[in-house]
């Protein structure tokens, strides 16, 4: 049927084949017939052929190569979905020969303009890595590139690739750390899990332990009293610990995810908080984890395991939710046992009575395994909390009369452990138990009773020999462990009370000598040599009593979950309590914090910066987060923006190259633009396309408030054939050259068509001026742009005239320094002008505002409120500029400018005068 011309027949055939694959039947014989159809036009057939290929390509490598060219063609397809699926299938074919082709395809796709294709590229990385680990270095390069991607679609997948290929290269994360934190909430659920787990490890290597001041106190609170914890708190207050702002950023941005519907995300955040947050803040996760307990039983199982570990370290956290761990009769046994574990861990003096009452009802359950676990739990509570030991013991003793043997046996074992702690007080219980030997048949319980009697035979001197007598009678019918304990009992009695028991012991030892089990024969021989004095017996028999009746330490009943927290919570390894393959150890906190500045994102080359463009459905409005000097807060600007309207936060982001014009420090310069236009097809009417260069006003590092940026027009939209250009002085240090002034340009396309290839030509500079050109701005690629219609190029002559106030950078001076410097710049260097202040600008705030808008200066603190002082340096020559505005009554004021460059001084006076009087 596959050779048929009809698509419908082909489809039917393919469906049958895929059904065979799904059922696990071998369909590899059909490979040649199927692979022929790889180029089939029908998309449904094609899909199924792909499915087949991915499954069998490994087995039929030679034939699979036939299909490769189809995918290579697909990689160049204009439709991003076809590109993506071609890459997906190509990378899924596990044939070593095509490794170079795959590598090439991945590299190409990593710089594809569609984020969906880039996501697929990220997925392909681990596939290639597992096929050929030698490509690692090249793949790391690709990962590095993709990590810098700013779309939420890619983030999760690339971190996944990072985790599989190079989890040790933590240095790749530095630059992207803040971005990942800020994008996190918009990443799809699965990506969130992976990113959070990775960031947990990252944070452990980069930040200091927030609980460092508490020392090891946290560990000691295990079963300790609450007072310990209070002390810890106090201690913490004494030595304030300062958290790295990035550490705080991570905690803050992950917290909302506790509200996710996805249990895996909640767990990931919970483990992050458990491992990273200060003790006082960890509590927030308890509520979310308790919520997960209402989910599917498998989820409960995993969550309870993790909660059990957490309760050991931080008991207080879950105490308010004690009742949520109460057991229902409908829970599966494994869940019941885990809940019991948690309840036991949570028990303390205050809640023990409620917990025990609850336990008491559990004992009557029908689920015997669960009852046994409950008895064990009571035993643990009793050992840990001294006050209730006696009540527990009494309760357990009463259980001895229970009809169910399993219950009795379990109780005996637990009682044995409890009695070991204080045997003196409880000889009556031992007596009671001795009576039980007649009834109890469970070997473990019998053995425990015998051991108890032997160990404390001094407390029950009358009964012990009698028990031995009975046991000797039934010796041959006993189980092995019971036999061993009978021998032990006999030996101990012989040593303490040889008069009464000598013959009995001999008898028992003789029986044991001919037992079938070699352990028992060995034991009998060993004990006989040790306790029965003969001529041959050496020095050992002297010590027999010491050997047998040594004081044995009471067993410690502890949780199986103790110390499990060295595994990262929520991980497979933690669940199994064994290291799983590929598990990345959670590193210990560093002694000293590594340099936090590695996370600062610098604009390496400010002429080119990659911005994020988000598409709003309200029309073709583009937001471009353009050139930024990103410093700390800058990313949060974009974060808050995407939070305000989630339509932007979606996946429609595109990277666009933008520019930052930069230029020399002197006055004028010419610049030409060349425009090409293309038309947007989808939107029929003229669309306003605005490239808003969101200037990051949040750069807190600079001293001057840079909020007062003024825009100047460079090119009007009518003269510019629809293109208008505005520029402003960003007042940011221009990193490639500190002696230059950064100019930021904003291009707005008001035309019906798109603009292409913007660049500068024929720059004419005045003497002493330099300009750093920006590279041509490539066409603005948008997925929706289809019909490109070019027009002839246009050139525009424009000039930029920076006001003198922009040619300086603010500096910080104290009042005294200011006065000292001013004293040195008197005479020729001082220009004074009297003025009348504008009616709106008579208060101090307005003056400061206007002066800083006119000139890039910073304010100098000043004692009197009549005077405002400002200071700065020129960018090129670093000569000092000092400005003083002294106000008098009724708006009269005096402006003084001190500057060693007289020209600059006069021009500045003019500018400030204008600013203050208008």
């Amino acid at each position, binding site marked *: 049927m596959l050779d048929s011309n009809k698509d419908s027949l082909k489809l039917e055939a393919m469906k049958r084949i895929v059904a065979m*694959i799904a059922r696990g039947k071998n369909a590899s014989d059909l490979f040649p017939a199927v692979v022929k159809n790889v180029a089939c036009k029908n998309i449904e057939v094609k899909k199924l052929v792909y499915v087949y290929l991915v499954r069998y390509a490994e087995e039929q490598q030679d034939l699979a190569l036939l299909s490769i060219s189809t995918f290579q063609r697909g990689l160049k397809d204009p439709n991003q979905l076809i590109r993506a699926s071609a890459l997906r299938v190509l990378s899924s074919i596990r044939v070593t020969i095509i490794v170079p082709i795959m590598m090439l395809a991945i590299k190409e796709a990593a710089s594809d303009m569609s984020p969906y294709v880039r996501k697929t590229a990220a997925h392909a990385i681990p596939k290639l890595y597992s096929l050929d680990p030698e490509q690692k270095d090249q793949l790391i390069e690709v990962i590095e590139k993709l990590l810098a991607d700013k779309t939420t679609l890619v983030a999760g997948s690339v971190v996944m690739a990072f985790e599989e290929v190079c989890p040790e290269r933590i240095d790749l994360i530095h630059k992207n750390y803040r971005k990942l934190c800020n994008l996190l909430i918009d990443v799809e659920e699965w990506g969130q899990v992976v990113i959070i787990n990775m960031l947990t490890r990252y944070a452990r290597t980069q930040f200091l332990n927030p609980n460092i001041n508490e020392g090891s106190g946290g560990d000691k609170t295990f079963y300790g009293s609450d007072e310990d914890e209070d002390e810890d708190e106090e201690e913490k207050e004494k030595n304030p610990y300062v958290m790295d702002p990035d550490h705080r950023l991570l905690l803050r941005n992950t917290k909302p995810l506790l509200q996710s519907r996805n249990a895996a995300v909640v767990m990931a955040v919970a483990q992050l908080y458990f491992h990273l947050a200060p003790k006082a803040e960890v509590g927030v996760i308890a509520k979310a984890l308790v919520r997960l307990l209402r989910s599917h039983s498998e989820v409960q199982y995993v969550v309870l395991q993790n909660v059990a570990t957490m309760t050991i370290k931080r008991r207080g956290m879950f105490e308010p939710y004690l009742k949520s761990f109460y057991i229902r009769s409908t829970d599966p046994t494994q869940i019941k046992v885990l809940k019991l574990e948690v309840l036991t861990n949570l028990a303390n003096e205050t809640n023990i009575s409620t917990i025990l009452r609850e336990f008491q009802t559990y004992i009557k359950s029908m689920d015997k395994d669960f009852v046994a676990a409950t008895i064990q739990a009571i035993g643990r509570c009793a050992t840990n909390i001294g006050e209730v030991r006696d009540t527990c013991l009494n309760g357990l003793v009463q259980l001895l009369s229970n009809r169910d043997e399993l219950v009795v046996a379990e109780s005996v074992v637990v009682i044995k452990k409890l009695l070991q702690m204080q045997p003196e007080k409880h000889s009556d219980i031992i007596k009671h138990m001795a009576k039980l030997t007649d009834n109890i048949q469970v070997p473990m319980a019998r053995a425990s009773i015998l051991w108890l009697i032997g160990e404390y035979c001094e407390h029950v001197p009358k009964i012990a020999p009698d028990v031995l007598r009975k046991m000797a009678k039934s010796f041959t019918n006993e189980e092995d462990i019971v036999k061993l304990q009978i021998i032990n009992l006999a030996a101990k009695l012989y040593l303490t009370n040889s008069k009464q028991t000598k013959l009995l012991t001999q008898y028992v030892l003789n029986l044991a000598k001919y037992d079938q089990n070699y352990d028992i024969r060995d034991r009998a021989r060993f004990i006989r040599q040790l306790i029965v004095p003969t001529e041959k017996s050496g020095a050992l028999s002297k010590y027999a009593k010491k050997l047998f009746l040594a004081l044995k330490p009471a067993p410690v009943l502890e949780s199986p979950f103790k110390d499990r927290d060295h595994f990262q919570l929520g991980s497979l390894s933690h669940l199994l309590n064994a290291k799983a393959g590929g598990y990345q150890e959670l590193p210990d906190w560093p002694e000293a914090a590594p340099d936090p500045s590695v996370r600062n994102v610098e604009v390496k080359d400010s002429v080119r910066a990659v911005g994020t463009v988000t598409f709003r459905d309200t029309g073709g409005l583009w937001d471009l987060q353009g050139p930024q000097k990103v410093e700390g807060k800058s990313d949060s600007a974009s974060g808050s923006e995407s939070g305000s309207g989630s339509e932007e936060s979606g996946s429609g982001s595109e990277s666009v190259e933008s520019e930052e014009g930069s230029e020399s420090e002197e006055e004028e310069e010419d610049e030409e633009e060349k425009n090409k236009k293309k038309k947007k097809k989808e939107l029929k009417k003229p669309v306003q396309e605005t490239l808003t260069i969101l200037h990051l006003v949040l750069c807190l590092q600079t001293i001057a408030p840079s909020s007062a940026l003024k825009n100047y027009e460079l090119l009007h939209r009518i003269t510019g054939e629809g293109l208008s250009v505005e520029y402003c002085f960003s007042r940011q240090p221009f990193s490639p050259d500190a002696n230059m002034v950064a100019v930021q340009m904003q291009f707005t396309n008001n035309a019906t068509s798109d603009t292409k290839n913007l660049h500068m030509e024929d720059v004419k500079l005045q003497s002493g001026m330099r300009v750093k050109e920006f590279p041509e701005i490539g066409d603005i690629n948008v997925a929706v742009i289809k019909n490109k219609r070019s027009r002839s190029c246009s050139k525009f002559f424009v000039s930029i005239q920076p006001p003198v106030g922009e040619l300086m950078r603010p500096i910080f001076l104290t009042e005294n320094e200011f006065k000292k410097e001013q004293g040195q710049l008197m005479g020729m260097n001082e220009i004074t002008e009297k003025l009348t202040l504008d009616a709106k600008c008579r208060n101090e705030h307005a003056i400061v505002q206007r002066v800083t808008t006119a000139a890039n200066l910073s304010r100098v603190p000043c004692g009197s409120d009549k005077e405002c002082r400002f200071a700065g340096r020129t960018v090129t020559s670093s000569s000092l500029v000092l400005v003083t505005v002294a106000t008098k009554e009724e708006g009269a004021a005096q402006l003084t400018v001190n500057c060693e460059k007289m020209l600059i001084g006069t021009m500045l006076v003019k500018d400030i005068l204008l600013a203050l009087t208008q």
Partner: protein
Amino acid sequence: MIHSLFLINHSGDIFLEKHWKSVISRSVCDYFFEAREKAVDPENVPPVLQTPHHYLISIYRGKLFFLSVIQTEVAPLFVIEFLHRVADTIQDYFGECSEGIIKDNIVTVYELLEEMLDNGFPLATESNVLKEMIRPPTILRSVVNTLTGSSNVGDTLPTGQLSNVPWRRAGVKYTNNEAYFDVIEEIDAILDKSGTTVFAEIQGVIEACVRLTGMPDLTLSFMNPRLLDDVSFHPCVRFKRWESERVLSFIPPDGNFTLMNYHVSSQNLVAIPVYVKQSISFFETGPCGRLDITIGPKQTMGKTVENMMVTIHMPKAVLNANLTATQGTYTYDLTTKVLVWDIGKLNPQKLPNLRGSLSTQVGVPKPEDNPSLNIDLKIQQLAISGLKVSRLDMYGEKYKPFKGVKYLTKAGKFQVKMLCTAHFSTNWRSEYI
């Protein structure tokens, strides 16, 4: 990540397998079968198993095991959550998630699995996106398909992955624009033998069915949002708005979805809608016992309690029950020892009562375990916590949608511990206090 997936039915046959990386022999499942044998009850199979070379993570849903094979470290919840999502998707597509349905649609299921994971990492799990790539079957289409020979694979390429809102497909059109919200609350409670509440809480969920044209932006606000103590949202809900204004603001996915889950703060006293008077006793002397249960309404806010059903897991020794019910019918399953009493509507004037004798096995000691009583009920038009939706606003689109809110209260895990006056008079509770 997830290496392979096997679907295993109740009797232990593997009827579907899917490998995302190289093929793993199905013999790996033997370890699972071993654990399955040991656990007796399918619910007790440990979800995570370790084998020499692989790790097996499984879930049990609809009498099927979804067994995934893992080779390296991965968060177990990640896998479990994903497997449940697979089951949800199958349910969403075909109406139920059972062996028969999957076998009938094996090609579609296989394609779905192919789309959901890429190299073991989840790719598309949103049902809106999946439905665009692989269309769910309908009766009409299956008829058309058999005639024309086309399949359920979409002809046009999806745009969902690329739309601004990943969970909503673009270009939705309806002639009737409707948005329905169901507020469903469940009471989880454990009542003591004497009827006092040991533990009670309310779990709520808001299920939405939204069929609106275009890209609507909805805002749902409550009269009393303070009631809500702990919430979890569908990813479409803007968390910041909730934090600051306590309103749900979201662009909904198309069709049915769960908008939010919540938990009502435990400070508020939970109203228990019914009370139960019960006693069960076994005589020391003869092979029989007595059972007497009466149920009456307690705090129902004037609404009628419907669909009352009482389930009791009897001790193993109980052979048969000979009871009379004043209302409804009862059944006793001899093999599972489950007594089910279906009451129906609760009439406050005439309280339903079930009494009679139980026959126990001769020669077996008296049952000493306490059976517990599970109650199932429904109250229409009432959210027992008192939560009320105040309004629903729509932005972004011009038409007027039809809006509706329904309330429903159900019993969740509602358990009453039974008073068993059997042999065990020694009650050691007093010693603890």
